[in-house]
């Protein structure tokens, strides 16, 4: 493989670079030096080795100017490379699955029998309050993380006219609104069919269409995140929100398990409901929600840890 001319002799192995080159290197941020310093010093040695005095001055002044530019770039926050955005995309997808699981939980506990048990048993009431509070915290964390990202995407789409953002964004929003509308209409229809027992066909249709909607929304979000330019400073600002979301998800998972166990000990019959067209208060659904929430929590925690490592790694590494 041809690498082009090898260049002049350069600095012999084991010998230090000339003082002026070492000084020029210190015009660059530390992270930059750790990534490019050695090869950059070798290039300076190559370029100045046989140059005239004027040539050396030109090379060194350009090197110092590059250092200033690197400092300005570091202060502005470098643009994150594509692979650095993966944890963010992973968390965005996890949030969608989490939202579906929470919606399923809300659906599961609807109906008067659950309200009666909640009023009669303090453990059920406390677990439900904790679940609601931690789910609220998770929603706040999602808002705190999503709002600046949404603003940046909007700005790049409208002001910078960055291509490739509008299509997936529109598809994702249309899918989310469309599926939510279908669920709302089905729920209204279900209200007219109380007492007919669970309709497996309707529940299955909603679940399959919901899974498809999640896949489309996940595609839309990951595509937008991949195509947007994400400044490193903004990415770092996302880390606290992601950490808060991870903790909230863990708390929601624990609260879900505690709530289900409390309900079962208070009135085991509640998890064998027969109270509507799309009746869902079944023990496997509760256990499934706990498994899904746990999986989503683990994925979010792992992605957050990866994001934190990427965000605070030395620049250029």
């Amino acid at each position, binding site marked *: 493989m041809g*690498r082009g001319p090898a260049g002049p002799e350069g600095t012999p192995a084991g010998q230090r670079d000339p003082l002026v080159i070492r000084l020029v290197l210190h015009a660059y941020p530390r992270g930059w030096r750790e990534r*490019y310093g050695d090869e950059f010093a070798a*290039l300076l040695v190559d370029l100045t080795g046989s140059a005239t005095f004027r040539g050396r001055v030109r090379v060194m002044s350009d090197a110092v100017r590059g250092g200033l530019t690197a400092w300005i770039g570091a202060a502005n926050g470098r643009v994150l490379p594509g692979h650095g955005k993966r944890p963010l995309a992973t968390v965005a997808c996890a949030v969608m699955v989490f939202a579906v699981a929470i919606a399923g939980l809300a659906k599961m506990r609807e109906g008067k029998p659950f309200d009666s048990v909640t009023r009669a048993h303090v453990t059920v009431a406390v677990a439900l309050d904790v679940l609601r509070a931690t789910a609220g915290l998770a929603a706040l964390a999602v808002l705190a993380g999503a709002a600046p990202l949404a603003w940046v995407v909007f700005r790049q789409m409208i002001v910078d006219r960055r291509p490739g953002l509008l299509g997936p964004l529109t598809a994702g929003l249309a899918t989310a609104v469309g599926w939510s509308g279908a669920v709302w209409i089905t729920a209204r229809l279900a209200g007219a069919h109380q007492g007919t027992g669970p309709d497996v066909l309707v529940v299955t249709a909603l679940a399959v269409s919901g899974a498809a909607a999640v896949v489309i929304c996940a595609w839309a979000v990951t595509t937008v995140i991949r195509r947007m330019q994400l400044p490193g400073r903004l990415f770092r600002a996302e880390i606290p929100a992601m950490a808060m979301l991870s903790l909230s998800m863990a708390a929601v998972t624990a609260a879900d398990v505690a709530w289900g166990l409390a309900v079962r000990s208070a009135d085991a019959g509640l998890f064998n409901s027969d109270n509507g067209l799309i009746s869902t208060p079944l023990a496997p659904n509760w256990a499934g929600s706990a498994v899904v929430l746990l999986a989503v929590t683990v994925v979010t925690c792992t992605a957050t840890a990866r994001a934190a490592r990427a965000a605070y790694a030395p620049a250029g590494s």
Partner: protein
Amino acid sequence: MTDDVGRWSDPPLLVLASLAGGPKHGYAITQDVADQAGVRLGPGTLYGAIRRLEDRGLIVALPPEQRRRPYQLTAAGEQVLAETATQLRQVAELSLSRLAARGPA
């Protein structure tokens, strides 16, 4: 993505064009660009461009050879270079044809 590379004699475009001929380290890129395009890239300018191109995934670093590290184009880099070069060719052809139509001043 094409906008990130810039136009005409912008250093990132020159670096991409140089690497289209195969992987090269910094010194080889400066020599190639000087020989082929008549542009003398200073070291700070060159590494500013390398940094931007690497951040955007348009070039990738290869294992260093002694202290010199070669870089090569990625598939995304090839695509961006092809798009940019096509646009530049269209502008160049348009300019030349209109100048020719005007005749000598």
